[in-house]
């Protein structure tokens, strides 16, 4: 029995067990803790599968951001209606059983078919690896994201912007819930912010820079900076502000604009839209994307259109 197999089996069991507990467990708080653990296990699994780019993004978003989001939502729930935060006895539903059986059947069919198919040659992947040298990039993930499938990335950034606009529509008239600590006066927390903020910024910019040749890139750097932004919000260094500022709006649309420029600029030079312009252009677009992603995610967490400095 090889250690590799044991690792994979253990990881699979942990993942499925955690997911089951999150989905059907009755204690809300316990489910939140299991969800955070699930996010961490996911990051480990991406690392095991040899996908460091995905692990980087997942560690920040899955383990940090969404966990904190759920915890804050739970706090608000407890303050509004303590009864809802208690363990709920879920009534079994016949429809749920039918749907579960059908879903399991579908997954089994697709899975078994996929296992029985003979190995298809990976056409797109091979083409990417063959043409990667022409682009001068070393990281195939960045190549796919920005050069070969650039339109998809443009659409993804637009989705992020749309999500933010949607959240603004929903929260414009809601009462602000400031999830800050009274414990900001704690010297330990201020030390934490003082250490983590510069380090996170440095690591984020480093990930952006090396993303062209090694695992990294705009999404990973942006999600790390968003995590740092959430850290600042939770400790009271940053506070949500109701008055939307032009600078903040600029950073929100910077990513989409940069990608639009990437799409249209080649046309002005007489080439096809989204033709490759060089590493410099990619870095420029990625930098603006990183700022956009960080700002959008932080503002989504804050629930207000802008931020202001708290007591420092």
């Amino acid at each position, binding site marked *: 029995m090889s250690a590799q197999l044991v690792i994979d089996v253990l990881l699979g069991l942990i993942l499925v067990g955690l997911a089951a507990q999150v989905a059907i467990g009755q204690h809300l708080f316990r489910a939140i803790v299991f969800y955070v653990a699930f996010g961490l296990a996911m990051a480990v699994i991406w690392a095991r599968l040899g996908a460091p780019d995905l692990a980087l993004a997942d560690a920040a978003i899955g383990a940090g951001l969404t966990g904190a989001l759920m915890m804050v939502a739970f706090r608000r729930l407890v303050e509004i209606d303590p009864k809802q935060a208690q363990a709920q006895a879920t009534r079994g539903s016949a429809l749920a059983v039918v749907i579960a059986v059908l879903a399991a059947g579908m997954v089994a069919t697709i899975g078994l078919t996929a296992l029985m198919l003979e190995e298809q040659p990976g056409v797109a992947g091979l083409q990417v690896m063959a043409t990667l040298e022409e682009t001068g990039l070393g990281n195939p993930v960045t190549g796919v994201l920005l050069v070969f499938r650039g339109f998809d990335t443009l659409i993804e950034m637009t989705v992020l912007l749309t999500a933010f606009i949607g959240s603004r529509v929903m929260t414009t008239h809601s009462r602000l819930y400031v999830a800050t600590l009274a414990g900001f006066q704690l010297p330990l*927390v201020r030390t934490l912010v003082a250490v*983590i903020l510069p380090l996170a910024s440095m690591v984020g910019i480093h990930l952006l820079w090396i993303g062209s040749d090694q695992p990294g890139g705009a999404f990973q750097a942006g999600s790390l900076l968003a995590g740092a932004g959430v850290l600042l919000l939770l400790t009271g260094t940053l506070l949500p502000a109701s008055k939307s500022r032009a600078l903040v709006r600029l950073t929100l649309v910077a990513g989409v604009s940069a990608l639009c420029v990437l799409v249209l600029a080649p046309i002005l030079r007489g080439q096809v839209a989204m033709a490759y312009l060089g590493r410099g252009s990619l870095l420029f677009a990625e930098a603006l994307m990183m700022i956009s992603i960080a700002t959008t995610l932080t503002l989504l967490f804050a629930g207000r259109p802008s931020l202001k400095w708290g007591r420092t």
Partner: protein
Amino acid sequence: MIDMLALVFLISGCFFIFAGTMGMLRLPDVYCRLHALTKADNLGLLLICVALSLLGGRVRVALLLLLIWLLALLASTVSAHLIARHSRARQVSEGDNE
């Protein structure tokens, strides 16, 4: 020679992490569990980082691992402090209401 040293560090690191988990499961109170978890886990992480630095063989790797360990120290310190404060505040308020 370096190999054996790294193996010793790795095994003792794993042992300390095991000790931390045991402490978390068996000790009677949340404060005791915090003690066991943070101290033993950080020591175990340090020993594992030392082992990996010996294996890595390059100064750059060792420095990165040192940075990761220091940050883990900071993170678990602040987390443990916050959890303990919250539990203490809850304990005090529950004691008052009885």
